[in-house]
């Protein structure tokens, strides 16, 4: 037994131990801030002010979570965000696939032109006010769709998917064609089943991106019923930092409007939890998906 253990230890050489330590270091860098946020969300205001809270709650209290759970609009925002994210992700995937697939077809004339046309948007945009005017002219202001339709297609994701499709043997395409399949059948029955990992990765990109976005809602949405969770979170956090602002506003004693740090942290956890729950299930496709597309492009 003893010898076996030492043998095992021997197999893990110093180099590997160093690697493990380095990895552990990076893991801690990533997780500790999160642990800190959790600790703050469960601590009393006085303890936070004293600077007592690092990785373990001090003067434990769940009041911040009570406030959040007691706020109906928080759940309304949560459901709205889930709904928007779902619709957005599905539509985005459909459109991205429908752009990326033809661009890999050698038969398509002017492929380079279309590609340039698409890539162009990565570097140039109309600017905030023109985009706002556009949304307004389309009658989308203060509508759920203003959070979904703009930015349905991410150029970056189109390129990733196009490269992935290109990496599949073109002979498959030809074989299916000879067997009598049309383009849609080739896409649905040959390409998509082979691209599952890539598709899952892109869907995750789209979903996380939408989940975390708030700037579109900041400008296009005024109605409180249509505020996504991240916009609420943004307002809460800004409110928490607004002590100086309250003085400027002449409302100093009514600082209640500023939010305590624990509520802020609890909201962060509340808003991150759904992604944390979903992530492990999609994560295994992540690495294969992106690198396959990227390297063989």
């Amino acid at each position, binding site marked *: 037994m003893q010898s076996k253990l030492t043998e095992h230890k021997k197999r893990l050489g110093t180099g590997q131990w160093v690697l493990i330590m380095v990895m552990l270091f990076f893991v801690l860098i990533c997780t500790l801030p999160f642990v800190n946020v959790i600790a703050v969300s469960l601590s009393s205001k006085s303890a936070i*002010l004293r*600077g007592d809270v690092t990785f373990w709650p001090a003067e434990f209290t769940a009041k911040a979570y009570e406030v959040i759970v007691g*706020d109906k609009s928080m759940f309304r925002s949560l459901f709205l965000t889930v709904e928007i994210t779902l619709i957005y992700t599905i539509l985005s995937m459909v459109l991205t696939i429908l752009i990326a697939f033809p661009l890999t077809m050698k038969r398509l004339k002017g492929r380079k032109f279309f590609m340039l046309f698409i890539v162009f948007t990565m570097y140039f945009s109309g600017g905030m006010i023109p985009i706002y005017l556009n949304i307004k002219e389309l009658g989308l*202001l203060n509508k759920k769709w203003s959070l979904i339709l703009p930015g349905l297609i991410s150029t970056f994701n189109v390129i990733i998917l196009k490269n992935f499709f290109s990496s599949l043997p073109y002979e498959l395409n030809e074989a299916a064609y000879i067997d009598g399949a049309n383009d849609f059948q080739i896409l649905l029955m040959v390409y998509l089943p082979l691209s599952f990992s890539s598709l899952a990765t892109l869907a995750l990109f789209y979903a996380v991106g939408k989940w975390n976005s708030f700037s579109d809602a*900041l400008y296009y949405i005024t109605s409180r019923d249509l*505020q996504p969770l991240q916009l609420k979170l943004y307002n809460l956090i*800004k*409110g928490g930092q607004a*002590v100086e602002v309250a003085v400027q506003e002449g409302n*100093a004693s009514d600082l209640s409007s500023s939010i305590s740090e624990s509520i802020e942290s609890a909201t962060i956890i509340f808003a991150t939890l759904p992604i944390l729950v979903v992530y492990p299930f999609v994560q295994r496709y992540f690495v294969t998906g992106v690198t396959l597309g990227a390297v063989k492009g």
Partner: protein
Amino acid sequence: MKRILTLLLTLCVLLGMVPVSAMADEGWTTLRVEMYDRSIAGFNVEDCWQLRYIQKNFGDPNKIKVEWVPVSRWEEGTILNNLLAGGTAPDICMTYGGDMVLQYAEMGGILPLDELLAEHGQELTAFLGQEVLQFGQFDVGGGKLQYSLPARRIITAAQSMYIRQDWLDKLEMQVPNNVEELYAYLKAAKENNLGGAKTIPYSSDLYASDPFYGWIFQMDAFIDYTQVTEEDWVTYHDFHYLLPGAKEALRWMNKFFNEGLVTDYFGISNSDQTDSDRVMGHDGFWVGNWDSAWRMEMSYSHDLEKNVPGASWIACDAFKAVNGPTVHETYNAAGQYLFIPAWVSEETAIAAVKYLNWMSLPESLFALQNGEIGHNYTTVDEHGIPTDLKNINDTEDAYKMHATDGAPICNGFYYGSDELNYAATAMGFPGYEDAVAASLVISNDGGYEPISFTRAIQGRIDYGSMVSSKEGELLVQAVTCTPDKFDAVWEEYTQAILTSGGQNIIDEQRAAYHEGAYRGFYPMAEKK
């Protein structure tokens, strides 16, 4: 294929479902008013007590339907910019960004209010007063006109100085009145380790956007006013450290630092550490906003007492002028800016001015700021001032309200006179009423409002951020260098400020002085 077609079809149908906006009722005017949204739990901006009160007491009798349009408080400038550019801005807009108002006035995007006010806004004009109204007057080519209505700022006090009462008692010292007495206190506190091993007699935090802000009281105490003309004052007001004598205030800071009396991370913004030092009792003196020691959210006093029994903060004036009267910079009398976009119809513009005019009536203003008895407060004192006004988190949802947002003509609570306003403000800090009142007196003593310019100073726009970052360097280098190098460092870094755009700003401000394009006054004007 079918599936994809169906999806696309659904998309088209959904796009077509964008509803047509509702038609207004016959004979009624709809008035859309911008309202800040702060995402306060349980508080719905679009349907709240204040709005219902306004509709019942102002809207219904005047056949005006009042709607509040929520705009995030923290991005109000950018959002309002979008709304104005897109022509979707509310009929009454409000913002804390005075520059934007001037910019849109110059482009003809804002309605001048002079005639409307004369006809429908007498009470409002009287309430705001000329001192406040002048901040909303601009000359953009057609003579000086009232483009915006600044809110009346009730408390103009800005900063105060805080010292530990329990340390003074232990040292058997009086409250310091000048920098030498302060030095004796700081020195004794350090020698006796009154705050334990981590004693920091004088703690300071840095405002990156205006580095010298926290030292303006100290500098004012050292300025040699016999050498300062009104022209110098206007020109150099935001280069306060260049006024004759101001440098000596910083020499004292340098001395404090070199003797270990100041935070050793001086110049690095580290508010978490500062907070912790203040509530753990390590800290003996600091300069901050007039109410910082007692604020509900960052209650230094309350938490200090919990952590260190018997400890307390009191306000003091440790920087009385060496010779001559003491002056203290305050805020100016104007708060946020209200305006009406140029495209608003005459009918709606009249409704808008009527709305604000109605708001300035004592009864309306009181209700909008204080809410309803039994819900927002239970008792009033002999002057009719609520003594137990609840804060928004403790109020039941149906009565939640935000005073300054709901009654935007006023920044701060108004009860009829300065005396009552100050008393009411102190009452907002239960348990610390006297200390807060004393802090307000100190902060207002010899108050003067900062100089501002009525036209844009182009140099400030071009070089402003560069200059303030150089100012930060000057402050940190001058305070942390060894005393023998102080003069050389001062010379080097002030030169750097002047050559990196400071001189341009100064020249332009001097020109603005000669044009009379400024507001504010020289505090020593009458005394000379």
